[in-house]
């Protein structure tokens, strides 16, 4: 988790957003990348982070919040240090992802969508990750895990302190 939420965007984040805005004919195109810059810095999109992005791109805050709320990988609530995304779409379902989700739930003590009390993990079930030859597929942060069975869950969790 990042520190106290009530702080504006840092200078580095603002510089990065300015650079991103230069890649496009219209600065609003940098909104999604900018929101990820803010999310990386604050852990999730705090009200201050959203306001900071709106200011940096000179966009109405209502537009920034509206866009942020549309996409599933932009977080408007706190998430754990590590986000576990278990694919539950067809190929993974047919190959037993249900048992994998159950094992994650047991080990973490949270339902999909929940975050562990120590703030270490958020568990999510997600739609197709386009890794169906490796079903069941799991994404932890930016790492893709292939052919995950229930008995692999402990080994996966260990890797993310």
């Amino acid at each position, binding site marked *: 988790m990042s520190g106290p939420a009530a702080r504006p965007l840092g200078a580095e984040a603002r510089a990065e957003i300015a650079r991103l805005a230069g890649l496009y004919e219209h600065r609003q195109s940098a909104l999604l990348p900018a929101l990820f810059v803010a999310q990386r810095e604050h852990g999730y999109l705090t009200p201050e982070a959203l306001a900071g992005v709106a200011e940096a791109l000179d966009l109405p805050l209502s537009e920034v919040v509206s866009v942020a709320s549309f996409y599933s990988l932009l977080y408007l609530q706190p998430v754990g240090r590590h986000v576990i995304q278990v694919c539950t779409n*067809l190929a993974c379902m047919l190959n037993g992802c249900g048992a994998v989700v159950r094992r994650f739930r047991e080990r973490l003590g949270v339902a999909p969508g929940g975050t562990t009390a120590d703030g270490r993990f958020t568990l999510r079930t997600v739609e197709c990750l386009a890794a169906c030859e490796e079903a069941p597929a799991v994404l932890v942060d930016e790492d*893709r895990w292939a052919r995950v069975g229930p008995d692999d869950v402990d080994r996966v969790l260990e890797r993310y302190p």
Partner: protein
Amino acid sequence: MATFAMPESILLRWAQTPGMTELEPYREAGGYEAARRVAAGELTPEAVIEALVASGLRGKGGAGFPTGQKWKFIPRNAPVTYVVVNGDEGEPCTFKDRTLLEGCPHLLVEGVLIAALTVGARKAYIYLRREFYRARRTLEAALAQARAAGLVGRGVFGSARDVEIVVHSGAGAYIAGEETALLESLEGRRALPRLRPPFPAQAGLYQRPTLLNNVETLCHVPVILTLGPQRYKDCGPPALFSVSGHVVRPGVYEAPLGVKLRSLIFDYAGGLRPGRRFKAAFPGGSSSMLLTEEYLDVPMDYDSLRVLGSMLGSAAVIVIDDSADMVEVIARTVEFYREESCGKCTPCREGTIWATQVLERILHGRGRPEDLTLLEGIAKGMTGTCFCPLGESVPPSLVASLRHFRDEYERHIAGAARDH
């Protein structure tokens, strides 16, 4: 029984040869030669488009629109033109674009260069779904190599032409794969599909003429120009099929367009697991109507599948054996569309919610005999009424399952009646 020998690959081999993520091996194998010829004017835009038309290449993202035609639609004298690449591969069980990006990103970069030089674009955006972390890393590394070698950026291949390529990651939304929704997303808005016309070729990104192609489509382009359209066609023409589900060897396979569904499952993907029987398959992603055993010999091409009421779509074959509960399969599929519906139009937004609720109650032992008629009614209400193909993807398989697997629905409902 004769052993099955896979035909020689002309596209997928680039992604399956170790080391092809690097510039030098790619160039040594003949890579970037087609783009160089276009940059040098040895191949004119007209010649490129003529070759694409002659090749018969059609869009690989799902809609199957003839690619040469699409390139021809781009006006020649606009002040600013863009190329946008759809790498938002989200159609359930489709993973060919990811395979190409991770195995041979230079093939895409070369395709983008040829596209930009042909339609007169100085800037191209490659929109990748955010979950493609590995693909983005390999693509960014390839772009950096190509830029350092003078193939991307200012004066490509020593010519007077500039082509900038920017990689842009999405933020988690299946609907962004619909081409006009992708443009909205790339402009920094909610990914809601736009009304067409105007088509992106006239008014796309920032209302400029925009050539929008899928990753795999653009990867075919250097191959076509290198081999020539006739040899390309003689090789199939090649298509990439993502085969997944209940098969022994799930994976991406290159096979000639028109290969039998049976061959893809039983020859290429190694068949079903021991002791299992085939039950059904989606031939072109979960948005295509599912097919039962009697259709195993259908040729996997655009027209043969369309005649059956299904489609080639993204050529993702999802194989389901007799261990699966079809009500569960359909419930999960419809729930996916509910999750991903953008909410813009009523039939899709409400239809997917209603259908999911009914399917869930059947699945959880609370089904009622009249639920099957209700599902048919919801499907009818969503047919031809949705704003974009997302909602329209729901009725065909829902209706097919009610026809072919009605007994499974009825067993769930009879169980519910017995329990209460």
